[in-house]
């Protein structure tokens, strides 16, 4: 983490505007991931939502930036660029508070063994015992930094410094859906079986994407998530579908 994100790129000022295709502008708050830069992106997008400018068709965040898709036949690049610049300058987005209407989720999790075959390896890289690893991760309150790669799939951060471990150089053959994997101080909660370079440390019964449902996307950027450890018995009942469509998870509004 870098407390002063612009340090890594001294020639360039942040936030920075760039065109994306014919109908998009990207507002980048930092070229490296930091908590303030992610908070800035979430807060800035939330503000764009309340401004609801005519011609803006969609907004989204990545880890440290905000993408604005618009209709250039009704809103010119110059007009939107000026409006974005004015909004950027209207406050210190790196210091702004997180948006409202976020939720805190608690997702029951089975760590290690067959549920997390790479927990031992990951803990060793983080230079701690597996029980210390479980204790640290299961007690961390993490934020959905962004959702991407696959529908509804969250990148969660940030874990303590010790977890600044690299991805594997090669890809794991397959990681199951609802698996929890770790790298670079982040967790990914996979929504579908996929090959990955992240290390598989635990398993949940939580589906981030439910295409058949009225509410197909469970998590939103900015939501917070904890992964408390549960016994094999409890986890078996989750897998058996006895604890609801959220895989035993519950949530509350963040006040």
């Amino acid at each position, binding site marked *: 983490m870098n407390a002063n994100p612009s340090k890594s790129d001294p020639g360039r000022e942040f936030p920075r505007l760039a065109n994306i295709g014919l109908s998009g502008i990207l507002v980048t708050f930092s070229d490296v991931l930091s908590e303030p830069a992610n908070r800035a992106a979430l807060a800035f997008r939330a503000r764009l939502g309340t401004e609801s400018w005519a011609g803006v068709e969609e907004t989204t965040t990545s880890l440290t930036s905000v993408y604005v898709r618009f209709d250039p036949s009704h809103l010119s690049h110059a007009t939107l660029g000026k409006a974005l610049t004015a909004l950027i300058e209207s406050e210190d987005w790196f210091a702004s508070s997180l948006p409202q209407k976020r939720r805190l989720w608690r997702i029951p999790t089975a760590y290690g063994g067959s549920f997390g075959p790479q927990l031992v390896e990951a803990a060793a890289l983080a230079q701690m015992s597996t029980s210390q690893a479980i204790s640290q991760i299961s007690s961390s309150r993490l934020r959905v930094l962004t959702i991407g*790669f696959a529908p509804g799939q969250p990148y969660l951060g940030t874990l303590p410094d010790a977890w600044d471990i690299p991805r594997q150089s090669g890809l794991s053959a397959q990681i199951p859906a609802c698996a929890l994997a770790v790298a670079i101080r982040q967790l990914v909660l996979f929504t579908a079986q996929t090959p990955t370079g992240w290390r598989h440390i635990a398993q949940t019964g939580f589906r981030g994407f439910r295409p058949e449902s009225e509410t197909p996307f469970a998590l939103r950027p900015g939501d917070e998530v904890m992964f408390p450890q549960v016994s094999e018995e409890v986890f078996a009942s989750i897998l058996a579908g006895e604890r609801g469509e959220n895989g035993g998870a519950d949530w509350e509004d963040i006040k």
Partner: protein
Amino acid sequence: MSGSLIVHQAGPTLSVQDFGRPGYMAFGLSQGGAADRLALAEGAALLGQNPEFAVLEMAGVGGTFQASQDVRIALTGAPMAASVDDQPLAWNASQTIRAGQRISIGAAMKGNYGYLHVGGGFATPQQLGSRSHHIVAGIGSPIKPGMNLPIGADANFDQPDQRLPIPDRFSGGTLHVLPSAQTHRFSKAEIARFEATEFVRTPRGNRQGVQLGFEGAAFATEQQLSILSEIMVAGDIQMTGDGIPFVLLPECQTTGGYPRIGTVVPDDLPLVAQAAPGTRLRFRFVTIETALETNRSPAQVQTDLKRAMQPLIRDPREIRDLLSYQLIGGVTAGAELETSDDQNG
């Protein structure tokens, strides 16, 4: 008139498509929808209906279909050998099919994606505001033999049959590219080499994107493997870890960690989608001002298509003429479209 289209035989990748689901990028879902957007507009113009109506996209090869009632159809996109009860059907034209007649659509003779439109559109169930099968995300289901695809009411059933000139967007060419947020990560020399290189569409590709082969060194940036994942849009030209470009299509992931050298303008994207393996493609950077002037709005596209339409003449010799161009160009089997590789690691 409404009813259904019965699917007797189906190529490996038939899917119902429309313009997809804009607005879900924040949830990691790309827009999806028809690979060749211009084909949607052509079919809508031929049938005199809303371009948002759902159509059947046929990747590489079509199938055999039967209408439960009289139905108007139009065939657009990659030309495929098509017949009704063994009488040839004209491509890029609207025609009326009688109840019980069998429509057979074979392999693409040029390009990748052919489209079967019906008057009234397909009335399959909507999910998240669209009928599109998003194959990567698992929204919707593949079209299989034995299925009955419901058809909406056709408000223009009595409209005379029309035809459009057969466009050639199936032979590659020069694609116009806009600079993007990561273009500055490539050196001027690399950008010049990119513009000077002739690329060939490889067999790797699907509705997520297509891989391009070329001769020469890999395209590299500094820090290529350590840049932060950033949003991705259809048209982005992504340089993967081994320095080989992929051009992204409607089902691309919403974020990716590989640098994008630029973005193909929307009007040229159908050329990418329709480039069969072996097709040659080049890139030329243009400014946003130029692209805004030259790219047509959907309304302008509809106006241009209406102007270009002519009545379909039912002269067998004429129909033979319409089909004759199909002898030009290579044949693609379509199986290569099935390669479903992870492009983003």
